[in-house]
């Protein structure tokens, strides 16, 4: 099978991550007591936190049950509560839904036809009282990146905090961009385990915890402690997930992302298929959405899977606002996405499958 759904989850998992997970499964409960297994666990979690911290300079690393949980904590927990929220145009529901659930007015940052934020217009059309900007680092539908660093500078100048959804980019693009809060998951390009996420908390950011419980100290107090990371880490931590992520972060991702992105797009273009949302001259991950004339994306996904043994993903990709920008909200698209383990052979299989499929679909229509 040729796997092209790395934007959903990257497979296979990194061997070092699996080793870390096994180690984590055999340890005690960190922060609770002082026996040897507990101390070993606490040391391992600290080590993992330092490794992940290298991806998030000057931030405090807190661990959560995935990027979605981290984004909810960031957006719903931010204090003071924002009175108005600016939304990136291509947001995943993991960021968009908690932002909309705040129940305050929202506005969408101005953008071009590919969904890339137009900073000049954003500055000119900035809505008064905007206290929070929620933006994705790159689109999980088109792979195209946003000008996050400049957006953070603009937001800071105008008095707004920035929450960055870095789930698609962690490990492959720098996250040192000036955001106040950065969330990502462990199981995408870092190839660690699902069910593990990170929220990087910048200096001076105040967060109300969404989950309360034991942290291993201050047990007599009714309130959660003020200090990070414990303030946001109630309950027994996911040691296998955290140690897997720490191990994966230490090794890092060795991959020419730009070349991979160009190669993947070229394969889709060469098949004569309609690529969506990648006309701008913006950096992009190897995530390409396309449509096939006369064929529903779901049928294309099924054909690729059952006829060609190539795994892709069709639909709205949990990002309906991105599909509204692209004009594909009714049917969605077919998305192919590669990862650091994708081989030249996989790409050749994809090229053969897409070429065959496109040719026969044209002949049949």
């Amino acid at each position, binding site marked *: 099978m040729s796997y092209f759904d790395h934007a959903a989850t990257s497979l296979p998992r990194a061997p070092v991550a699996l080793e870390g997970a096994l180690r984590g499964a055999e340890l005690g409960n960190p922060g609770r007591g002082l026996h040897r297994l507990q101390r070993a666990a606490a040391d391992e979690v600290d080590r993992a936190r330092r490794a992940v911290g290298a991806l998030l300079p000057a931030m405090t690393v807190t661990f959560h049950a995935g990027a979605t949980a981290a984004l909810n904590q960031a957006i719903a927990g931010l204090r003071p509560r924002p009175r108005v929220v600016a939304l990136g145009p291509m947001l995943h529901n993991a960021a968009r839904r908690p932002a909309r659930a705040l129940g305050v007015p929202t506005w969408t940052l101005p953008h071009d036809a590919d969904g890339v934020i137009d900073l000049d217009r954003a500055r000119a059309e900035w809505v008064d009282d905007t206290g929070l900007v929620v933006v994705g680092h790159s689109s999980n539908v088109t792979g195209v990146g946003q000008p996050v660093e400049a957006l953070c500078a603009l937001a800071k100048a105008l008095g707004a905090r920035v929450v960055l959804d870095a789930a698609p980019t962690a490990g492959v693009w720098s996250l040192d961009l000036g955001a106040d809060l950065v969330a990502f998951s462990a199981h995408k390009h870092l190839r660690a385990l699902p069910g593990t996420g990170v929220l990087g908390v910048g200096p001076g950011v105040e967060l109300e915890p969404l989950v309360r419980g034991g942290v291993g100290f201050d047990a007599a107090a009714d309130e959660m402690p003020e200090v990070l990371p414990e303030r946001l880490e109630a309950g027994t931590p996911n040691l296998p997930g955290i140690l897997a992520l720490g191990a994966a972060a230490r090794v890092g991702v060795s991959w020419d992302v730009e070349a991979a992105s160009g190669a993947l797009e070229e394969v889709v273009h060469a098949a004569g298929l309609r690529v969506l949302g990648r006309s701008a001259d913006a950096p992009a991950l190897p995530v390409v959405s396309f449509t096939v004339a006369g064929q529903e994306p779901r049928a294309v996904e099924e054909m690729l899977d*059952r006829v060609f043994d190539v795994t892709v993903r069709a639909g709205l990709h949990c990002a309906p606002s991105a599909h509204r920008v692209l004009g594909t909200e009714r049917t969605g698209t077919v998305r192919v996405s590669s990862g650091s383990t994708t081989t030249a052979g996989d790409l050749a299989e994809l090229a053969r499958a897409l070429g065959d499929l496109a040719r026969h679909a044209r002949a049949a229509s």
Partner: protein
Amino acid sequence: MSPDPEVVLMRDCLGGERVVEIELADGLRRDALERLDGSGTLMVLDSLPKPFARYDRPGFFLLTGIVGERRVRFTMRLAHRDRAEETALAVARELAA
């Protein structure tokens, strides 16, 4: 008499459509697809490595599968999602007849 077709997966997608996958007792036959209600459009991509069939009743459902294989997929359009399983099983029984 053939055993009843069996629902093996049911899932919502695209904000309202419902996918129902059914395992037929025998492989999907082209002649059975051709006998289905004429209000739909049948397309069989014969020249693919495996013959992929799609039968589309606009506004109602899309049936897809590989000729000769037992698993077929029904994508029920929004207006018919509440009767997705019932409709898919009824069509699957027509295919098996």
